[in-house]
Structure formats: C-alpha cells, structure tokens
C-alpha cells in the first residue's frame, strides 16, 4: 500500500506546483504553442508533439509502446502449472485537449483515437507436475502446453481528463493524464500441443469470457518541454 500512497502524494505535489506556478497570471492562450512530451504510464512509454490550434484547444499526436513479460501470474484452478505472460501494446494516437474553464486552465478534457497496430496478450500455460500416465512418466514434450492468445488490434477511442498545463509556462513541466481507451473487440484463441492439443475446442468459451475486456485504463505522467 505504500507505493500507491507515495504515487498519489507525488501526483498532488506536482499538481500543486504546476497550478501555483502559473496562478496569478492571465490564463495562457494555447494558440500556436508547441511542446514535446515524453510520457510513462499504463500504456508504457511514449512521446508526443502538442500544438495549440485554438486558445482553448490543443492537439496531440504521438506513439506509445509497452512490451511486458511476467511469469506465474496466471493459474488455472486445479491444474498445477507455470505460466509465461507477455503483453505488447503499440499505438499511434491523436488527442484533443480542451480547456473548459478559463480560470482553471490546468484542467483539460481529452478525447481522441489511437490505432493499436499491436495489442495482444499471450499466456503460455505449462504443466508443472511430473505427469504420470498409468505407469508411464511423460516428458514435457509429450504433455505439451496451452497458449491463450488475445488480440485487440485496431482503432480505439479515448476519453479522459488531464491535469496541469500541456504547454509549460517556462520550459518544462510535469502533467498528468487519466482516462481510458475503449479497445476493439478482442479476438481470442487457444492453441494446445501434445496431449493438450484438444484445448483449442475451448476457444469459443474463452472468446465469450473476454469479450468485455475492452477498457484499457490510462494513468500517465507526461514530461513536457515547450518549444
């Protein structure tokens, strides 16, 4: 629990700093301002270019990617196994930042789209016990493994909130995004090998189970540099 608390505290401190750094001034117009942003968050790491097209509206374009690997995070009840998980989400996106309240220009509504040219999660489940078949002890190759694959590739709308100014008053600031993508309908697949080859028959059930897994929450810290 200490980690989320410290993140929240850091977020509040940075937000306080950013808001106060520009208080007492006229709300800045976004028009023709430019910045580059490096970000890190739940969609991985990425970079963006932002440009103010109206006094209250800026457009952002960029890309993000997250290659992720983990072990033994997935269990099938009653089946002793090890699992290897890999997730790869690569997207290009275009977002619009709208400042709805002139006196609170640190607060923005954000909407847009991303195209996930790679958005997949793969889990390989490998039996971890020495499986006996009658009096025969089976090798790992004979037993085989099960791959569960999910692919969300495609266009995804985004809606969210952003905190702190997108264009730093000085050269640099830190701002935040909080929102969600609504991913395209996932395509699921189960592939088995060896004695587990028949598990491909479970694909329709797996597809049904994950059909609502479409919300990709975004919590992101942006490091912005004004051009």
């Amino acid at each position, binding site marked *: 629990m200490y980690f989320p608390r410290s993140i929240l505290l850091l977020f509040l401190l940075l937000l306080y700093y950013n808001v106060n750094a520009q208080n007492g001034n006229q709300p800045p117009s976004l028009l023709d301002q430019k910045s580059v942003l490096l970000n890190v968050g739940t969609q991985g790491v990425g970079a963006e270019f932002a440009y103010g097209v109206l006094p209250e509206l800026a457009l952002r374009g960029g890309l993000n990617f997250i290659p992720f690997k983990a072990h033994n995070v997935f269990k099938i009840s009653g089946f002793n196994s090890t699992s290897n998980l890999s997730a790869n989400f690569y997207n290009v996106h275009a977002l619009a930042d709208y400042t709805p309240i002139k006196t609170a220009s640190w607060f923005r509504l954000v909407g847009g789209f991303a195209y996930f040219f790679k958005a997949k999660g793969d889990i390989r489940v490998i039996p971890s016990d020495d499986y006996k078949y*009658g009096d025969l002890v089976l090798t790992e190759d004979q037993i085989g493994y099960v791959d569960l694959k999910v692919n969300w590739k495609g266009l995804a709308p985004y809606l969210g909130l952003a905190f702190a100014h997108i264009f730093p008053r000085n050269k640099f600031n830190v701002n935040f995004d909080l929102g969600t993508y609504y991913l395209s309908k996932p395509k699921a697949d189960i592939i088995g090998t060896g004695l587990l080859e*028949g598990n491909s028959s479970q694909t329709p059930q797996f597809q049904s189970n994950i059909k609502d*897994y479409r919300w990709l929450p975004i919590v992101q810290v942006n490091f912005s540099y004004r051009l």
Partner: protein
Amino acid sequence: METLRKIQLLLVMLTIAACKKPTENIKIVIDTDVIKYTALINVTDGQNGSAAPAGTTIAITGAAANDIYELSGKKDIKLSSGIVTIGLKPTVAPAVNEPITINAEINAPGYNKETRQVTFRTETKQQVVNIQLTRTGSTAPPIVTPPPPVFNNVSLTFTGRCPNRTDIEVRPSVYVYFKKSGSNAAFQYLGYMDKGNISTNLLQQGETYDFQIVYGAETYKVSQRIDQTSYNLTLDMPAACNF
C-alpha cells in the same frame, strides 16, 4: 519491485475492465493418445462368438514384452469383456524394416491355450487381433461372424468425463465396439476413435445402439438412437482421470 510489478500488470492488462474471469467455464482437455502403436486383442468364445469367459487371462511374451503397456499406460495387462488394447511405450517405435513382434498368450479354464503373434509395423499404428477360444476336447469349428451391413456415414464424437473433476474433459483415442440395444448378439468392432472422433457406415438410421470401449481394464458403455448424421456422446471414464 514485486508490488510495482503487480500494480503494473494490474493496470496494464488484467484490469482492462471486465466482469468475467477469463478462465470461467474453461475445461482442460486431455488426449489419451500417449501410446501410438496399438493392437486391440479381442478374445471370444469360438463356439458362440460371445466375449471370453470370466477368468480368461492374457500374458505378453517375447523380447519386446517389457515395452508393452495397456492403452491407459498400465503395465498390468488384463482383459475386460474379452478385450484389451496393448501398445508400445511412447519411447519405442518400429523402424521401417525392423518391426517389433510380441506374443499374446491367452489362457481360460476349460479352453485350449491360444498364442498369437502381434507385430507392430511403422505403417500400421492400429490393428485388431481376433482370437477365438476353443473348448478343451471340442472339435467343432469356430463360428464365423458375418460382416455387419453397410449404411450411410454417421459421425460420432465421444467426450470422456471425469466424475470427480468437472474441469477436465478427455478426448479418448480407443477402439469402439457396438451392437443394437436390447440384442443378445455379441459386440462387433465399429472402428478406431481418434481423439474422440469416429466416422462409420455401420449404423442404421432409426436404430438404437450400445457403444462400448475398454480402457484401463474397465468397460464403458453409452447408448444412442441414430436419427441424424452426427452425434456428441459422453462417457464417464474415471480410468482416464488419474492425473
């Protein structure tokens, strides 16, 4: 770092908000085709074609006897309903010009001893060996069972169920026998079921049949009336659930 990792995982992928657990109602499907080269031994009473009498035993002899296992992987080989499927252990296979040969010796009280050579060849992964017993002192020739009539094709898909593990399904690869329900006739050979699937032209539309398999020295049966061209049938197969 562990906490960080968990949170990252939680936020990145597995918290893509949804209600259902991804593995909900997903069963683990297990095949039984561990033993690839098999031979069905079908022992009958040669006088009437019925299954071998109780007390009939089988012994495997020959140089390769140690490589022979029952279809369920057991070293102990027993007949059930006069039937047993034997095969080579998975690490042993015949070579092109080097078949593997064993002898199956059948003994039954009141019957003559029968010995049959069984040869495993690369080109024949399944084979049926029929052995008819003759009563001691009898000179009557064994009966000849006529081949069953041929009809249109019917596809059957068998699923093995584990009574104490509802999360497991078995796709049996095993020899299937059949007879008309209510008939006193002996079971006849239907064919080899590969990973739960068998297609046959020996079933008549409108008739009800009993299907029988022998696995792990246990006999399992299921009945089905044939009115369509395909059926999914379920068998309780506890002998295939010892994982």
